[in-house]
């Protein structure tokens, strides 16, 4: 069964016809040609398809498009706005080399942007010691909150560093700690 829906994708109004079985991910990729979100597992197990749906991070492979007629979707391609600029999280990923093959990266950066907002509004995680207080985004918090986004290349150490930088630009420098022996 097909249904006509509209989506606001990266600031652009798009209308499309979807099979009611079609996920938001496949709608974006196969119907609209928006291939920034990636399909790594199609089961919500890897996070490569993460987008911001109505401002919140979701695995777009677990969302049926037909259920979100009129929704606003932001992918990594649209995170920086319309002018082609990068979001500070994306800048930090580049500075820290928080990617290798890049396939999980659009999902990582969308997830990080959503996660920073969740932390800023005081949403606790599994490792939050006192859910009643403001969240302090230490490395353990970042690791826990980013564990829905798998990276097989093993860039986690740099992903944590990048998010730390983006969360508090004044705290650490943006240079990668690459170097030879001491």
């Amino acid at each position, binding site marked *: 069964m097909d249904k006509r829906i509209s989506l606001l994708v990266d600031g652009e109004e798009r209308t499309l016809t979807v*099979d009611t*079985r*079609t996920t938001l991910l*496949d709608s974006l*990729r*196969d119907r609209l040609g928006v*291939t*920034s979100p*990636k*399909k*790594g*597992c*199609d*089961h919500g*197990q*890897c996070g*490569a398809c993460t987008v911001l749906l109505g401002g919140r991070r979701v695995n777009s492979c677990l969302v049926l498009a037909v259920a979100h007629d009129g929704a606003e979707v932001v992918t*990594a*391609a649209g*995170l920086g706005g319309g002018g082609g600029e*990068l979001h500070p999280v*994306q800048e930090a*990923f*580049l*500075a820290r*080399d928080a*990617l*290798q*093959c*890049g*396939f*999980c*990266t*659009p999902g990582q*950066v969308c997830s990080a942007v959503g996660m920073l907002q969740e932390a800023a509004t005081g949403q606790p995680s599994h490792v939050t010691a006192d859910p009643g207080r403001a969240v302090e985004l230490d490395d*353990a918090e*970042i*690791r*826990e909150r*980013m*564990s*829905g986004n*798998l*990276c*097989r*290349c*093993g*860039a*986690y*150490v*740099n*992903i*944590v560093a990048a998010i730390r930088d983006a969360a508090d630009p004044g705290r650490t420098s943006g240079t*990668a*700690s*690459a*170097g*030879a*022996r*001491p």
Partner: protein
Amino acid sequence: MAELLASKAMGTSLRRVDGVAKVRGTAPYAFDHPVENPVYLFPVQATIARGTVSWIDTAEAEAVAGVIAVLTHLNAPRLARSDDAEYAVLQGPGIGFRGQFIAAVLAETGEIACHAAGLVAVGYDIAVHDASFTAGHPGQYTPGQVNGGAVPDTAAGDVEAALAEAAVVLDQTYTTPAGHNNPMEPHSTVAAWEGDSLVLYDSTQGVHAVRQTLAPLFGIAPENIQVAAPNVGGGFGSKGLPHAHVVLAVMAAQCSNGRPVKFALTRQQMFSLAGYRTPTVQHVRLGADGAGRLTAISHEVVELTSRIKEFAEQTAVPARMMYAAPNRRTSHRLVPLDVPVPSWMRAPGECPGMFGLETAMDELAEACGLDPLELRARNEPDLDPETGKPFSSRHLLECFTTGAGRFGWDRRSAVPGGRLEDGWRVGIGAASATYPFYRNPGNAARIAYGGDGTYTVQIGAADLGTGSWTVLAQIAADALDCPLEAVRLEIGDTSLPVASVAGGSSGTASWGGTIIAAADAFRKEHGDRPPAGAATQAAAPEDPEAGRYALHSFGAQFAEVRVHADTGELRVSRMLGVFSAGRIINPRTARSQFIGGMTMGIGMALHEAGIMDPRFGLVVNHDLADYHIPANADVGDVDAIWLEEVDLHAGALGARGIGEIGITGAAAAIANAAYNATGIRIRELPLTAEKFLS
């Protein structure tokens, strides 16, 4: 010794040149390439491990609106060759492993194809299968050679006599389970026939290898196949050679009325169709004198292969050159089973082999009453024990001493189980890492001058996250003695000069060395002031020193783990790798490669195990929920550093490759740290919690 290329752009921490497109998600991977009016393919897989398809009914599937065709062995196009059973897709009713393709649905959308695939009905004549891997399997045999071309068995001296006389003998068996590469990008192919020519967007580590593999299968000239792979979402060996899905996609594109076919394996399908690492059983025997000097090393390995296609992992090969011992024996035996075809996974051979050998060395150190680092120092060979050749550069001990100071080795408790902190037992361990130097022949590069100060540099190389887009541009800039901004690099397409596969950590040396040779040829032909349009293509240089030296990289892996005293949960709190790998072209991307390998080593140590149910020939845990790869919270403080060096005998680049060494020895370092923490020696990976609750 080759004349070394001076560093200017090389050695700088240039940011990934493809980074902006990748953080935005706009760099196209195989399935992302837009094509007109595509057809979507979804396969049907065998649900038995051995036998034949006795009947197959596609009527219900074909009746679904939007289905274009259903291919089975009864109607699929015939291949020109079908001698490689992995590639002989739909060429007959035979089934060699569970998960094998037995049909494929082509449809207007992915949803329709997937739905209709579920409507294909199949009957089987079931044959008795064998999917039980055991070291004592009566069917085991000696392969003709192991992966990489080495002989399966070696013997020097008299191991049995040396063990009989040794003051200290270590005799243990170590096992590693099946590992699945699981690159984040599923194996994907977009295939289109344009007349007699084939155009592919493929997820591959080598576009020319895909072309060379497909040409004889489809009976066409390689030049009539164009393969593009500008961006590859990881591979770790599983995209080193095409697998059956590429053949199926190309075949389907012969039946789609000229429309392009898009086919991505699902994550679940990857577990039976994309290669994997064999489980290993490693019998290690070490003999040492009273001072801890090895007198004998014996490393005997049993592993599996598919009955339909042989792959022999070279697990015991590193034991041939790691340590000085006058008496040595290595062997490989394969158990042929009705299982999916194993293949390359990051550091085949060295990765599982260095778990067995380096855990054994840790055990031997304790038996000899020596610090594990001192044991390595007492067994450092002057020459390669295997070949008798000098090492071009062997700094294993320097890696250990550098790392020991930086990691705080002196804080290691000499007595296992000696540190308990807040309910966690804390331990420190170490292990050696090693990987050989490979530089592949058969490369060529083309350099053209644009007249405006820019040079176009072309080679069909691959970047699967390895940084090739960045480091090859750096190498080209220095080879042409021009600013980095003047280099226009083109890779990942068969329209470019031929390139070898991104495998064996050989890419940078093979392709980079070829670019240097092409730059030299360009200068010789066109001088220092080339006219606009001047172009030169050159092949990789001969290595004048070929065969004179033993070329290997080395490293020292350090790990600190915490094992919960009550639950057995193991956490890797810190890791440090110190590597000696020749020249490092880009410190920023190199560090990522090293820590990436070490992070995959954490997965190998703690989590990863493909569980074969021998009753059904099925990898039971065939998705990312059940086959757990490291998540962010699994990885603590992991860092990598390296010795400043240039290998004077590894060509003009002096770099030995860094893609795989980071995983070697990592699991052993973690297991050795777990022993130091708990006093419990685990010889069977992975190090799951219940093993610490004995």
